[in-house]
C-alpha cells in the first residue's frame, strides 16, 4: 500500500493544478471578450475549483493531520505548492489564456482517463467525475485554438505567439519523479511519460487544423512539482490568501 506521504504529495499536485488554473480563469470573470465567453470560461473555472476541492479534501484525509481543503489552499506558502508552472502563467491576452488551457486540457484528459482506472477507488471516482468536465473543456479549447488560428491575420499571429511562448512550460507535464514512479508501480498513478506521444499527436493535429505550427523541441522549464515556481505564484497567493492570513482562525 502506498505510503500516505507519497499519496498526499500526489493528490496535492493534482489539486494544486486545478486550484491555480481555476484561480487564473476566475480573474477573467467580468472582463471576457464577449458575454457568452465570459460565462463559458467561468464555467470552466468553477469546474476546476470544484475538482481542486475534491483532490485537496482527499489529500487532507490521507495525510491524517486534520487539514481541510481550505487549509491546504489558503495556508501553504508558494514553496509548498505543487502545481505545474504552466497553470500559474498570467492570463495575458485571450489567445494566451486559451493556449494555456489547450495544452493543459489535452494533458488533463489523458491523465484523468488513466486515473479513472486507478487502483485507489477514491482517486478513480474523482478522476471519472472530473473527466466528464475536462472533456468538455478540451472540446472548447480546441475549438477556440482552431477559430483563432484560422480566423484573421491578427488572430493567427497572436495565437501562434501564444503557442510558442507557453511551449517551454509543456515539458514538465511529462516529467516523472520517484513518488510518481512508486505510485505507478502500485497501480494508483498514471505514467506521465506515456502520455507524451498521444499528447503531441493530438496537439499537433489541432494546431494543423488551426493552420498553426507546432513549436520546435527546445529547452523546457520545470520545478513546479518540487515547489520551485515562477514569480507569478507569489502574487496569486497574496491575492488568494489575503483574508485567511490577515484574520487568522476566523470563520468565513
Amino acid at each position, binding site marked *: 500500500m502506498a505510503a500516505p506521504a507519497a499519496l498526499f504529495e500526489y493528490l496535492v499536485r493534482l489539486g494544486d493544478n486545478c486550484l491555480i488554473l481555476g484561480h487564473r480563469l476566475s480573474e477573467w470573470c467580468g472582463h471576457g*471578450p464577449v*458575454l457568452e465567453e465570459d460565462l463559458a470560461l467561468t464555467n470552466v473555472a*468553477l469546474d476546476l475549483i470544484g475538482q481542486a476541492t475534491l483532490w485537496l479534501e482527499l489529500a487532507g484525509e490521507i495525510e491524517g493531520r486534520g487539514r481541510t481543503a481550505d487549509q491546504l489552499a489558503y495556508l501553504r506558502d508558494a514553496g509548498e505548492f505543487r502545481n505545474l508552472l504552466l497553470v500559474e502563467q498570467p492570463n495575458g491576452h485571450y489567445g494566451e489564456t486559451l493556449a494555456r488551457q489547450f495544452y493543459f486540457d489535452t494533458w488533463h484528459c489523458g491523465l484523468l482517463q488513466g486515473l479513472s482506472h486507478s487502483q485507489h477507488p477514491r482517486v478513480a471516482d474523482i478522476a471519472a467525475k472530473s473527466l466528464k468536465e475536462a472533456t468538455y473543456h478540451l472540446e472548447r479549447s480546441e475549438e477556440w485554438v482552431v477559430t483563432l488560428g484560422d*480566423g*484573421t491575420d491578427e488572430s493567427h499571429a497572436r495565437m501562434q505567439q501564444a503557442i510558442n511562448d507557453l511551449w517551454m512550460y509543456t515539458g514538465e507535464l511529462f516529467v516523472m519523479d520517484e513518488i510518481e514512479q512508486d505510485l505507478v508501480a502500485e497501480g494508483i498513478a498514471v505514467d506521465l511519460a506515456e502520455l507524451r506521444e498521444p499528447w503531441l499527436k493530438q496537439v499537433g493535429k489541432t494546431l494543423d487544423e488551426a493552420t498553426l505550427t507546432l513549436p520546435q523541441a527546445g529547452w523546457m522549464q520545470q520545478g513546479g512539482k518540487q515547489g520551485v515556481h515562477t514569480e507569478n505564484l507569489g502574487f496569486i497567493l497574496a*491575492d488568494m490568501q489575503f*483574508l485567511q492570513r490577515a*484574520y487568522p482562525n*476566523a*470563520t468565513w
Partner: protein
Amino acid sequence: MYAQMVDTGVKRVKSREEMSPEERDFQDRVDADIKIEAKDWMPESYRRTLIRQISQHAHSEIVGMLPEGNWITRAPSLKRKAILLAKVQDEGGHGLYLYSAAETLGLSREQLIEQLHSGKAKYSSIFNYPSLTWADIGAIGWLVDGAAIMNQVTLQRCSYGPYSRAMIRICKEESFHQRQGYDIMMTLARGAAEQKAMAQDALNRWWWPSLMMFGPSDDQSPHSAQSMQWKIKLYGNDELRQRFVDQTVPQAEYLDLTLPDPDLKWNEERGHYDFGAIDWQEFFHVINGDGPCNRSRLRARVAAHEEGRWVREAAVAYAQKKTAHKRTAA
C-alpha cells in the same frame, strides 16, 4: 432597482380622447393585462422607453459584475469563491437575457453596448460605489440584490412579454443571491469582533445608496405616470422603497447590526418604519458621472470590449470561412 429615472420622452399622459385608434387599442390590451409582443403594434414612445429601461437594466447587470468580481480572487474559502463566481456569472446571464429582450425592440447588442460605452445609456448608480472589504460582498447581495428584487418581482407582470419573461427567470436566481449575501453577513456578524466591525462598516456604506436605487421621490419623477399607464412600472418609487425598508429593518436587527439612520423608527400609526431624508444631491452627482467609481467602471467595460475585438472578429471570420467552404464542397 436597476433602471432608475427612465425618460419616456413624453411630457404628459394622453387622455383617451387624444389617442389615435391604434393607441386606444394598444392601451385597452395593456389594461386587460394582455402581453405586448415584439411584432405587435406599439406607440413609438413605448418602444423607445422600453429600450431605455431594458438596456439600462442589462447594463446594470454587466457593470454590476465589476464590484463583486473585485473580490473573486480574494474570496476567503473555496466554497465562498465558487458561490461568488457562480453569482457573478448569473449576473452576466441576466445581462444576456435582457440584451436579448431589448433586441426584440430593434436595436442590436452591439448598438446597445455602444450606447453604454459612449455614456449615452445609463446603468444603476449603485455600481459606482466601491467594494472595499469582503463584507461588501455580503452587503451587496443582501441589500443591492434585495432592493433589485423588490422592483423586479413586480416587473414579472409588466406589459411587454419578452421583458416580463426575462424577469421571471431573473427573479428566481436573484432571491438565491440575496440569501447568499445575507449568509455572508450572518457569518461575519457572528464571527470575531473584527469581522462584525467589517459587516457594520459595509452596512454603513451601502445602506443609503441602496435606498437611492429606487430613484427619486414620486413627486420628482416626471415620467412615472406614463410608465405606470403602460404597465412597465407597476408601483411608485416611494412605495417600493418603503417596502424595502420595512423588510430590511428586522433583518438588520436579527444580525445585531445598526442601520446608519438616527431617524429610523417604527411608526405605529402608519404601520411602517419612518426613515431619514435621503441625500439626493449625492444621488444626482453619482448618476451624472461623479460617483467614486463611474470612470473606472466604464473604463473597465470599454477595455474588455476593445481588447476582445480581435477575438470577436476572428470568430466571425472563421465562421464565414467555414460557410464558404461548405458552399464550395456542396
